[in-house]
């Protein structure tokens, strides 16, 4: 979705925009116009005494065309007004006229001058000054709006970079970067929410580090808490900070203005999901409006002929490629047309397609089993104690997931050569398969996490028991005073701690994201940059042409990158509740990705050989994003609703369920009638009919949209019939007479 620079129908804007770009001056028409207004006003005020002397009915026109409206009769005033209105209408409709550009510009300028000259003069008598003032203010306001639009466009980040990439590589590669930028915007908002409403309040107004047990590194871990290896794994000091769930205190209100921390944490978690849904669906709706034109099944070749060219290409090599790809697409379309009439060997094609799907399913099953196996192994390692195992074994799960995510799509691509689909259909199948692969991997990972969570919860019971024993021993040790037992001062680092499954979940997600990022960057550097360096510098002394032959420069894989981005965002949505640092991390990652990938594309990639339009796929990517959003918020919501929070860490510790915080807020912070209203509103008797009503509304809207679509198709058919009849009529009248005469 490209930002629209121009408000449609605003003729002056285009001219002025261009003038501003090229000359950098203000609108030239503005100054003289104001001068003329002032002149007119001065002269009109001066002319008042004069006109009483000269009582002429006709208009007195000065050397620079000044009109004295008091001299005009009402009919002439009326005619002048009509003329001005006509000129205004002409200016509005000038764009649609089939005139050459020069004529349009000349007419525009004439009409503008006319309107300027006579518009201010149309107001009568005293009201004329007010009218002129109003006109001037509207003009100033319009000018301000245009300048503001320009400023807004200049503020869009990375616009020139993306334009440059578009001119070299075409619109499909640029659409990836536009998507990246849009994601960056979303993550910026998410970051704002989590940072401003969760991390900063706790850091500024909550208890400082070291004051309570949950905020302190335990004595056992203190020795290695500052090591780089530990910090890179997000243990040590990184774990006991605002970055993770476990640091937050469950105090109901913190700071001097009683900031409700747990409530804010919960609402920010819900708010991020709600905001994401809203934004994605709004963008989908907007895209649905834009597309839908032009993908007709009729007039296939005419559409290709007249609409294939990409006018934003600014680079000769890309233009050559685009030319070649249009030629190829014509050849393909002709072949397809021929084949669709031939229709032989459909059994072979079907068999091959079934075989290809079977092979893909085998590959997916294999990868799913491999991840399950690896996850089981890592659980075994965790039981043994992680210190006994090498780095490879500890990070096995992440490595295997990243490697499979990199290699299996290539295999799918190669298998899809069996299927013999049209490239766009093949691309969609490919994307669907990669989607299934990533989803399978992600859910296997989540199931493994669930096992780990259950383990930790079992541990909790044991630890609770141990803590009671420890406390009892502490009090027994100090003395036998019961009621006024002096508070035993123990350093928070020495207090035995309960396990914190939420922090563990957050850590796992952060580690996964980091390893995914590292894999992407390393693949980029080695697969693109190193390859380009080798091809360029080894080509002098190699037996075959490296640029044309085997490695050659890599092409930018749009669909793979977009999918990677979508899944990355899914992981953020999943883990943001347990690790508030995730949006910040993602923001940093997207920022770096933008610069790195822009540089890599311009430096190491060549334009694709098959260039096809990206606009059809935009909604496809949005639909996938929506599905991922749904699927990734599902586990988070499940854990929030069913699993009780840890007793010893986080803002919800001590509660039975995390959403109890809402109940608590309603009872204590709102007046009594509010909670009564809420309890009525959340009554199932009210909620169920409401849901039923929404379902019925959706069904109604769906059926009306279907009927509109059918009406559209019928109108198209009618239009075709009418044009055909017209053609026949024209043919008959022009040639039919010949037939009749000669016959």
């Amino acid at each position, binding site marked *: 979705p490209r930002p629209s620079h121009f408000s449609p129908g605003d003729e002056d804007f285009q001219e002025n925009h261009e003038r501003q770009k090229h000359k950098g001056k203000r609108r030239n028409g503005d100054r003289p116009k104001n001068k003329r207004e002032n002149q007119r006003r001065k002269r009109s005020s001066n002319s008042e005494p004069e006109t009483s002397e000269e009582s002429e009915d006709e208009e007195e026109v000065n050397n620079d065309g000044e009109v004295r409206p008091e001299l005009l009769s009402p009919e002439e005033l009326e005619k002048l007004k009509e003329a001005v209105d006509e000129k205004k209408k002409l200016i509005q409709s000038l764009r649609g006229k089939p005139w050459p550009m020069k004529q349009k510009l000349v007419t525009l300028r004439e009409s503008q001058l006319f309107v300027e000259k006579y518009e201010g003069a149309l107001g009568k008598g005293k009201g004329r000054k007010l009218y002129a003032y109003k006109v001037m203010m509207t003009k100033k306001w319009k000018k301000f709006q245009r300048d503001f639009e320009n400023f807004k466009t200049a503020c869009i980040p990375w616009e020139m970079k993306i334009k440059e990439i578009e001119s070299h590589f075409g619109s499909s590669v640029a659409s990836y970067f536009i998507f990246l930028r849009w994601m960056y915007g979303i993550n910026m908002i998410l970051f704002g929410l989590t940072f401003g409403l969760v991390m900063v309040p706790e850091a500024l107004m909550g208890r400082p580090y070291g004051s309570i047990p949950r905020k302190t590194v335990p004595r056992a871990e203190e020795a290695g808490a500052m090591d780089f290896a530990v910090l890179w794994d997000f243990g040590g000091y990184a774990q006991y900070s605002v970055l993770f769930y476990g640091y937050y205190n469950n105090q109901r209100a913190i700071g001097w203005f009683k900031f409700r921390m747990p409530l804010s944490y919960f609402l920010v978690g819900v708010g991020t999901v709600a905001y994401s849904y809203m934004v994605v669906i709004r963008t989908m709706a907007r895209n649905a409006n834009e597309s839908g034109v032009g993908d007709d099944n009729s007039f296939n070749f005419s559409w290709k002929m007249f609409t294939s060219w990409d006018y934003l290409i600014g680079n000769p090599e890309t233009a050559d490629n685009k030319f070649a790809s249009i030629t190829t697409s014509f050849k393909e379309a002709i072949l397809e047309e021929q084949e669709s009439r031939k229709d032989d060997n459909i059994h072979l094609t079907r068999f091959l397609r079934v075989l290809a799907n079977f092979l893909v399913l085998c590959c997916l099953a294999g*990868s799913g089993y491999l991840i399950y196996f690896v996850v089981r192994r890592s659980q075994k390692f965790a039981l043994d104690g992680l210190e006994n195992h*090498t780095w490879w074994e500890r990070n*096995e799960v992440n490595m295997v997931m990243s490697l499979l995510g990199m290699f299996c799509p*290539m295999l799918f691509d*190669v298998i899809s050569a069996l299927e013999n689909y049209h490239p766009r259909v093949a691309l969609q199948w490919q994307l669907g398969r990669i989607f299934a692969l990533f989803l399978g991997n992600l859910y296997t990972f989540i199931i493994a996490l669930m096992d780990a969570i259950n383990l930790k919860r079992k541990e909790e019971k044991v630890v609770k028991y141990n803590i009671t024993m420890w406390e009892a021993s502490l009090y027994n040790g100090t003395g036998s005073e019961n009621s006024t037992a002096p508070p035993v001062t123990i350093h928070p680092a020495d207090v035995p701690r309960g396990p914190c499954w939420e922090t563990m979940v957050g850590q796992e997600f952060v580690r996964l994201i980091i390893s995914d990022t590292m894999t992407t960057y390393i693949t980029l550097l080695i*697969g693109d940059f190193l390859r380009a360096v080798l091809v360029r510098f080894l080509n002098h002394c190699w037996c075959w*042409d*490296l640029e044309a*032959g085997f490695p050659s420069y890599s092409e930018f894989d749009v669909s793979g990158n977009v999918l990677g981005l979508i899944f990355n965002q899914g992981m953020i949505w999943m883990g943001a509740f347990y690790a508030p640092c995730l949006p910040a991390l993602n923001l940093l990652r997207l920022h770096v990705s933008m610069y790195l990938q822009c540089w890599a594309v311009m430096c190491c990639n060549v334009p694709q050989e098959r260039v096809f339009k990206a606009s059809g796929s935009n909604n496809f990517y949005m639909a996938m994003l929506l599905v991922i959003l749904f699927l990734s918020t599902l586990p988070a919501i499940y854990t929030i609703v069913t699993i009780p929070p840890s007793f010893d860490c986080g803002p919800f510790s001590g509660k039975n369920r995390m959403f109890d915080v809402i109940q608590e807020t309603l009872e204590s912070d709102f007046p009594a009638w509010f909670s009564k209203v809420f309890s009525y509103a959340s009554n199932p008797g009210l909620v169920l009919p409401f849901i039923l009503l929404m379902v019925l509304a959706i069904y109604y809207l769906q059926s009306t949209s279907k009927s509109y679509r059918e009406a559209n198709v019928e109108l198209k058919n009618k239009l075709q019939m009418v044009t055909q009849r017209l053609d026949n009529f024209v043919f008959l009248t022009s040639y039919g007479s010949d037939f009749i005469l000669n016959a």
Partner: protein
Amino acid sequence: MTLLIKCMYLPFSFYSRMVSPAIALAFVPLLLTLIIKYRYYFVLFYRAVLVRIWKDCVTGLSREERAFQYVLTNSTPGDPDSILDAFDYWCSKVEFISNIGPKKGKILDRLLLEQSPLTVLELGAHCGYSTVRIARALPLGARLYSIEMDQGNAAIAEKIIRLAGFDDDTVELIVNPSDEVIPRLRSDYNLERLDFVFMDHWKKCYLPDLQLLEEYGLLGKGSMIVADNMLFPGAPKFLRYLRKCGLYEWKIHRAMLEYSRGIRDGMAELIYQGIK
């Protein structure tokens, strides 16, 4: 490329510690992909290198001699078409020799028919396949000069050309390296202008020979030069020179490599424009 780094790591780790079989299994899709994607190159390698070495050891004849034996027994003397067909059959079914092949040969025939040259130079006759192909499509009175560096190949090419029925008026075979012959073409062979040049010798000699032809003024305006194997194995310096110098109108005809499917190749067609 990650595979390379991993391969360097694996031997170390096998000595020091057990590498997880899972990570190794994760590379299986990559291997499968590489094998499937480059299967035609593997097949080509097998046919052009392995089978050749094997047959060399077994029969003791060189590849060209084996080809000649086959063509001699399976074609009609005096009929260029049957000789070419016999060659094609042998190259696609029995062993692999890099002649121009039937598909690219058709492009060559078409270009010859359009150009109708009277003086043709061929660099690199090898077995004589392309010589016979060109001679077949020549107009009456035209003459083909074929240059071949290797003595053995030249002997076989001579036999094949005479078997096809082309006498000394039509085809003359010169046995010398091309960079020695081209300077002497004007003096020894009285050639003023070459209408058509076909290059199919060593790829690294394309550019020097082209520059020699230009230098000795053997090209006139409208002379056509056809260079084979532009994409596989490829002649990068030649292509770079073409793009820069601006003396030629050039285009690349895309086709498949001879006698194999799936490997792309191209022939460059250059038309000399003359110095402006």
